[in-house]
């Protein structure tokens, strides 16, 4: 894992398409540059080669944009879709999250204006995880005024939320990683697509079969696998809480109504313009192509 930390600082400037630094992160991106970066992104690589490539790329934000092949007009069911319903004691879970948020002052000291890590955690295991956000993406967000995004509350690597770890287990993920995406009022996370690199890097680092597997630049997953991210609201939707998937919106959710979504292509964005903090459990992991989630099946669970 140390090797990845080192590579984060190792920028390969030969991949820099911008002659003029003032053009960096300038939206909308130059369509021709996006096409050039996309063609590079589509080249055949192993998963390990892909991680090395993206870690050293000077413009993660441009790669992310180029990696999306989303076409406006895509059906809502190809953007996000219900995948599970979990019946459990959500009231107790929400009380626990609220208590934790109070202790950690997540609402009153909401500040994500720093680059390495926004994860709320004080445990030592955190050190084995690479920062999940590439600095050029943060620079881009800061440049456009997005300075308070959300707070991530660690679940997988602590024993603080055992009841949420039990929910993680329902999905039978490999390299599962769960966080509570806690967005205090005024938080905004601008449009983006994902690479799910936090868990993916761990899989590449510790599983040579995945490291040497071909990276599929369309699914943005190792060939034979799918990386999945499930979103589960822990609480009822409150007016003003916004979650967009390009021209579509997710709203009026209820606790336990899990969705799956096209994290790889459909840009998504969140904002909490309401007056209640918003918490969504985020479970990420790898599954084989035969997994029920890849088949877009729906399951009900009771805990």
């Amino acid at each position, binding site marked *: 894992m140390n090797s990845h930390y080192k590579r984060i600082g190792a920028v390969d400037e030969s991949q820099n398409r911008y002659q003029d630094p003032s053009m960096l992160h300038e939206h*909308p991106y130059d369509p021709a540059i996006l*096409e050039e970066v996309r063609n590079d992104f589509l080249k055949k690589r192993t998963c390990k080669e892909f991680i090395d490539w993206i870690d050293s790329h000077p413009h993660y934000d441009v790669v992310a944009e180029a990696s999306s092949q989303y*076409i*406006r*007009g*895509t059906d809502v*069911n190809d953007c996000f879709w219900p995948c599970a319903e979990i019946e459990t004691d959500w009231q107790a879970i929400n009380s626990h999250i609220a208590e934790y948020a109070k202790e950690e002052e997540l609402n009153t000291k909401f500040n994500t204006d720093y680059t390495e890590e926004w994860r709320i955690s004080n445990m030592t295991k955190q050190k084995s995880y690479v920062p999940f956000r590439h600095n050029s993406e943060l620079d881009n967000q800061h440049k456009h005024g997005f300075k308070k995004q959300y707070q991530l509350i660690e679940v997988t690597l602590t024993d603080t939320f055992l009841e949420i770890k039990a929910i993680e287990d329902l999905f039978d993920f490999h390299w599962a990683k769960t966080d509570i995406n806690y967005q205090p009022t005024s938080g905004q996370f601008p449009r983006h697509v994902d690479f799910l690199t936090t868990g993916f890097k761990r899989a590449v680092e510790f599983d040579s079969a995945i490291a040497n597997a071909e990276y599929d630049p*369309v*699914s943005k997953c190792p060939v034979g696998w799918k990386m999945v991210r499930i979103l589960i609201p822990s609480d009822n939707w409150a007016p003003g809480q916004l979650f967009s998937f390009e021209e579509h919106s997710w709203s009026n959710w209820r606790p336990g109504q899990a969705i799956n979504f096209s994290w790889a*292509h459909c840009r998504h964005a969140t904002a909490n313009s309401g007056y209640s903090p918003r918490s969504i459990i985020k479970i990420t992991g790898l599954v084989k192509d035969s997994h029920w989630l890849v088949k877009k099946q729906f399951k009900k669970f009771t805990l």
Partner: protein
Amino acid sequence: MKYIKLKNTILKKLPDLDKDDFHLLEGKLVFKNKDKSIQVKKLLEDLYSLDIVLTSTINHPHWDNKYESELYFNNIPTEKTYA
């Protein structure tokens, strides 16, 4: 449907179009030449019965090329694959 698949279909069906005649930008296809965007609009209407909007493109000073028009869609066919 994803962009590369759509682009390959267009280039196959309209051989006088070049791969650099149009690009993807924020879910829309942007064209250097308006006549070519009209050609593509007609092709995709016939091929997929797509509801297509054609507008002019706002060009930005930090772009290397000029674009005359763009297409966006309202009813892209649902995907059968998971991605």
